[in-house]
């Protein structure tokens, strides 16, 4: 049976970057601690807040790579 939607999905190694936020956020034991604190904010809180911009930054190279991929295909 042919997998209709699969063609052209083009998952590439760079998409593995998207797994990093899952690894960081689901390993709760790692960040469920108070120290080191940052300007009085416990590690638990600032570590997770830090991952908001980190998660967005990780999407950026994937976005660029997909665009290059698309342009290459159209030419």
């Amino acid at each position, binding site marked *: *049976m042919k*997998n*209709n*939607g*699969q*063609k*052209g*999905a083009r998952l590439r190694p760079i*998409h593995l970057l*998207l*797994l990093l*936020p*899952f690894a960081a*956020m*689901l*390993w*709760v*034991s790692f960040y*469920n*601690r*108070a120290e080191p*604190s940052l*300007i*009085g*904010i*416990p590690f*638990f*809180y600032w570590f*997770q*807040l830090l*991952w*908001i*911009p980190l*998660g*967005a930054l*990780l*999407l*950026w190279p*994937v*976005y660029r790579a*997909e665009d290059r991929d698309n342009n290459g295909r159209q030419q």
Partner: protein
Amino acid sequence: MNTVALTVFVLLFGFVTVLGFVAARWRRGDLTQLTEWGLGGRRFGTIVTWFLLGGDLYTAYTFIAVPALMFGAGATGFFAVPYTILVYPILFLCYPRLWSVAHAKGYVTAADFVRGRFGNRMLALAVAITGIVATMPYIALQLVGMEVVIAALGVQGEWALFVAFAVLAAYTYTSGLRAPAMIAVVKDVLIYVTVIAAVIIIPTELGGYAKMFASVGDTKMLLAPATHTNWGAESAYATLALGSALALFLYPHAMTGILSSSSRHVIRRNAVVLPAYSFALGLIALLGFMAIAAGVKDNPAFADGFKTYGNNFAVPALFLQMFPSWFVGVAFAAVAIGALVPAAIMSIATANLFTRNIYREYIAPDCEPARESQVAKIASLVVKVGALFFIVALPQSYAIQLQLLGGIWIIQTLPAVLLGLYTRWLNPWALLIGWAVGIASGTAMAASLNFAKSIYAVTIFGVTIPCYAALSSLILNLIVSVVLSAIFNALNSERADETLAEDYL
């Protein structure tokens, strides 16, 4: 009554009302077509979509309920942050495909896609009904957010809520999705101003963040650590974040936000820029701890509020205590307008589902496009009246319990919708049975907890693992869907897929 705050509040509310009606003329389209009324003509670019999805996903109820959970239960409430971090890789990877196929085939709802992909009316109906039932209590909860701030302003009775909702219903009816898209801009400006002021002013007045966290106490500040025999609060936290992230974009209102954008790249870009809201949400969550540190619960002025609204009163009380009157008006208007945007989009999304997947599919298959749009407009009114009835006539706890169940239910459409974007190997009848197993098992887990919690402990090899019921029931659903697909496909491998591989690119 707080006259200054009330005046500012009413002025801001009046301003967005005017905007809501003016929106009908914005990027003018023929509002007698469902894609125009219900999807804004699929013309929203990156910036409008950013505001629209931001207003849609980060709702007033979130602004009240997340800090309320931090206030009452502590660190657990912060799961909203990892939840919104995990949402965006999923949005980025999967949903541009949905946009493309919807654009190629003219799909307005997720159920439209399932109908086209699997050629099965029953499965599409299951997806549509799940969406409608999961969204109704969500709309009702938006009213809770509005009700709390109206009460905090000192306005007695429910008439104010009726007025606010009548206004909302009227401009949603005339302007469709364009109204919340426009109002979302105002809502965001107000929310950001409020949040920035709050995180700068309040901790300073409370003597800094260190002092604030110290007053929260050790048990609330962190999760109870996992042990070898019980993963405890930590696995509850992780599964809540993951399950909520998987469920979010399956909700009809999120789907509407995605499908109204003008290209798949708008969605990809938004996955990169939407996290700005998550940061605001993280700071808003901390308002719950600020409320503890400020001692609002011991202030006799707020005793009535806490009695009626419970911990949901924590943030309004904090603002009343810490901000000057005029700024209280701004902050409360931000919450109330923050309720209008998602309530409008949710009612439009449910109306789209009803019209496309129930009315046109089962009641009037030959209806004209203008009639379709008219039915959707009326359906959006009915949905809002239903939500209002919910809040006014029934105890508030019903809406909260149903919304909790809604999350468990909506995630059961994941195999058909999300996996369906990548493969048609899954058999529609297998998906339907998997869906039913997921709904039944998830509901049973919640029922065993008296619908008060959604964390159900499973024991595997002697280790107790508390798990979000949506996630464990989804796993059952997936197992049933895959195993039965293998069996059904062996018996009969015919497919009625109207989509092509290139439709997804």
